[in-house]
């Protein structure tokens, strides 16, 4: 395949990569990769999970060194960059995994490493100026929190915004955004896309990585597609479209678009019901929700609307302050995640690195962990049983890894997510709660996960899917519940699904319903 590159033939690239190669033990993450960045262009970078996108960006950010190849910045060739060189060359980097200091406030985080100083040898921080400098940045990303807020008190999405503000604060020539929207809901995503356009207008280049191809379609001037660590092709502005990107990414057309398929059976009886429960974030807002068997209930809402909190309470990780929960009509006391698991209520958490998987354990050990007694005889773990289960799940879910004994930490994000799913699928779910299940997951895997969710529902499992991706919520759910400031503001039936309705409910307004009798109140 010959890469075609027709953008901006007139402006000279200020940054270029030549034949870059990077290997990890047993994996070639990047090979024979070349690419150029010109001033003021927005490059969309796409590829399946594990294609090497983050690796590439880490090389540009100076976090990892390539094994071979050259990086040329302003005519100077390097074997690899250091973080300082990278920052010095005007490269700002928002990492895929968040890198904030919870014990510092927002302002300190944004200008971390570049604090304005008072005069004098002591290198004291000029706190007044710092605050002045932060205010416009927060406004630009549309933050709803103050510069003095400790980062520990922010939600994941809000932290994502801090990261973006941080990247904007650098007088950058190139801003790298590694999946910045993966945990951003609709409104904030819009703002981010505007920010990208603004950067472009100022002549700043952007490399934008996302698995949400429609976002790429909207802002990219050029799309670079990675497959298995090599350049699969480049698409000029006029050739950027969904199907073409998918074809280059996975080497064939995807039959199904990212949908879960229609329900094949009618929703069953209520499986899990929560009645007037209160969470610690919104102790004043009782929430009630019913999950039916054989149904995918989508849960939408704005940042910090309390969806994750609800999921955590249902899973028993967080304390329930009030209210009751019933499973199949019987009262249920979930005091801990162990109780939930024992009752077949499983959670795929939002933050897989910290809570989803144990990065240091092998795939097999991760999969067997919640159900270890079943893989043991007389309390002694049977390695054979463990491997058998893992192999089966690896095959079922198509987990890409050298073997089930591979350390989970070396897998790409998408494959890690599949490991999380695998451990629950290996058991017998009654209720499956998925918090942003496709966060950071490539399009092929997404389709697979949607398929899995549908298969679960078809098998009679009650599925609750929390998602900030509008297309996903509408495309996958059988019903959609929307949360607004800690409460369910309405439930939409399939006929009433529309972006507008979900957004209206998310900001606490009434939706436009086909039948006046349905859903929300």
């Amino acid at each position, binding site marked *: 395949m010959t890469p075609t590159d027709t953008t901006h033939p007139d402006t000279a690239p200020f940054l270029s990569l030549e034949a870059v190669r990077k290997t990890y033990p047993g994996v070639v993450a990047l090979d024979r990769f070349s690419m150029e960045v010109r001033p003021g262009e927005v490059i969309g970078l796409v590829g399946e999970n594990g294609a090497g996108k983050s690796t590439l960006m880490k090389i540009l950010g100076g976090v990892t060194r390539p094994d071979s190849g050259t990086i040329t910045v302003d005519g100077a060739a390097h074997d690899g960059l250091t973080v300082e060189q990278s920052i010095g060359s005007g490269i700002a980097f928002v990492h895929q995994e968040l890198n904030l200091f919870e014990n510092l406030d927002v302002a300190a985080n944004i200008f971390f490493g570049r604090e304005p100083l008072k005069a004098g040898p002591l290198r004291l921080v000029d706190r007044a100026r710092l605050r002045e400098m932060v205010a416009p940045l927060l406004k630009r990303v549309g933050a709803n929190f103050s510069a003095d807020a400790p980062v520990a008190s922010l939600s994941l999405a809000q932290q994502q915004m801090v990261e973006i503000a941080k990247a904007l604060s650098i007088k950058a020539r190139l801003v790298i955004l590694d999946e910045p929207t993966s945990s951003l809901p609709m409104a904030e995503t819009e703002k981010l896309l505007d920010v990208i356009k603004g950067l472009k207008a100022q002549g700043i280049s952007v490399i934008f990585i996302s698995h949400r191809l429609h976002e790429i379609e909207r802002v990219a001037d050029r799309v670079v597609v990675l497959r298995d660590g090599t350049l699969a092709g480049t698409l000029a502005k006029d050739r950027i479209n969904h199907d073409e990107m998918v074809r280059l990414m996975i080497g064939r057309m995807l039959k199904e678009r990212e949908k879960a398929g229609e329900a094949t059976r009618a929703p069953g009886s209520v499986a899990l019901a929560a009645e007037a429960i209160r969470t610690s974030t919104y102790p004043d807002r009782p929430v009630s929700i019913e999950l039916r068997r054989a149904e995918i209930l989508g849960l939408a809402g704005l940042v910090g609307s309390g969806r994750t909190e609800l999921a955590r309470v249902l899973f028993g990780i967080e304390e329930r302050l009030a209210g009751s929960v019933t499973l199949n009509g019987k009262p249920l006391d979930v005091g801990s*995640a162990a109780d939930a698991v024992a009752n077949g209520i499983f959670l795929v958490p939002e933050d897989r690195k910290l809570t989803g998987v144990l990065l240091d354990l092998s795939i097999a050990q991760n999969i067997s962990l919640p159900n270890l007694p079943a893989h043991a005889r007389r309390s002694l773990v049977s390695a054979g049983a463990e491997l058998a289960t893992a192999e089966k799940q690896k095959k079922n879910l198509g987990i890409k890894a050298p073997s089930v004994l591979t350390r989970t930490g070396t897998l790409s994000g998408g494959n890690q997510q599949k490991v999380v799913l695998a451990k629950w699928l290996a058991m017998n779910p009654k209720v499956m709660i998925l918090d942003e299940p496709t966060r950071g997951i490539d399009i092929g895997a997404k389709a697979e996960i949607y398929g899995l969710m549908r298969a679960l529902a078809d098998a009679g499992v009650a599925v609750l899917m929390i998602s900030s991706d509008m297309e996903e919520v509408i495309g996958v759910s059988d019903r959609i519940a929307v949360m607004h400031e800690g409460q369910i503001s309405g439930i939409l039936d399939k006929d009433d699904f529309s972006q507008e309705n979900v957004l209206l409910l998310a900001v606490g307004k009434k939706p436009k319903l086909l039948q006046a009798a349905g859903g929300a109140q």
Partner: protein
Amino acid sequence: MSKKDLGLLILILVVGAVVTAINPRFLSAINLANTSNLVALFGILSIGQAFVIITGGIELSVGSLIALLGTLFIDFIAVRELDWPLAFVVIIVLGAVIGFVHGWLITRLKLQPFVVTLCGLLIYRGVARFYTADGTAGFAFGQNFPTLEFLTAGRSYGLPNSFIALIVIAIVMWVVLHRSVFGRYLYAIGKNEEAAKYSGIRTGRVIIAAYVICGVLTALSAIYFAMYTRSISPASHGQFYELYAIAAAVLGGFSLRGGEGSLVGVILGTVLLQELQNLVNLLGIPSSLNFAVMGGVILIGVLVDQQWGVFRARRRMIEATRQNVAGAPAE
């Protein structure tokens, strides 16, 4: 046996060979028996510590506990004239209860292990000293407990019975740590407690169990130590033993961050430490250098292990690269 453990074993053998060359009595049956007795006493202690360290915790109070429980044990049987099996059970139960309280404070009240057990270190010794009014707990002359003494300080077939006890305990604990569901939970919690919780493990209970195991083994070794010295000044008995136990675990490849280490390792670590102490006496090195020798060897051991790891990782990477290059044309 892992490569790490093998390295440690080789170190132990090399040191042993050098000492034997200088003073062949090192290998005499009596010296081996003496040393293996102390290996047993410290080994039991260190296995307990290892169970806590693997969860990412630490138990600093074991030295003080050895003083307190030893004092109580001797007081029970020598002064209060309890039957020794009863006293034995009471002490073990006390160890378990103290371990439970530590675990409970750490998991339920979310205090840091270092803080809880540091307070334990201060409190238990104080209580022991108060209990004897800063005196000594010991047996009267001629006071004898033949069965107890045989079990703790006696020998069978030339082997100290304490060492036989260590072997039994080590085998049981090896199975628990490396083969059982509980052991797997310990490792998982040590690696990432939060994620273990999200996998439905009752992490609190598992951690408490680890502290209880540590408490029980510490109590057991407290009894052994008491029967070895037969006299206890609570102000100094067992001082710094937590450091011995931690050092043995660290030498044996445990990471204080949790989630790493093997049972064989901690035993080998104990053996090396006792070998060093033995060596200082046998070679007539000034006693003042005892600790310095210990510190130096631990540092060198850890350094070599670390540098060896770096070297191996680098070599593996180079090999992987080579393989890939070789495999490339075939694609």
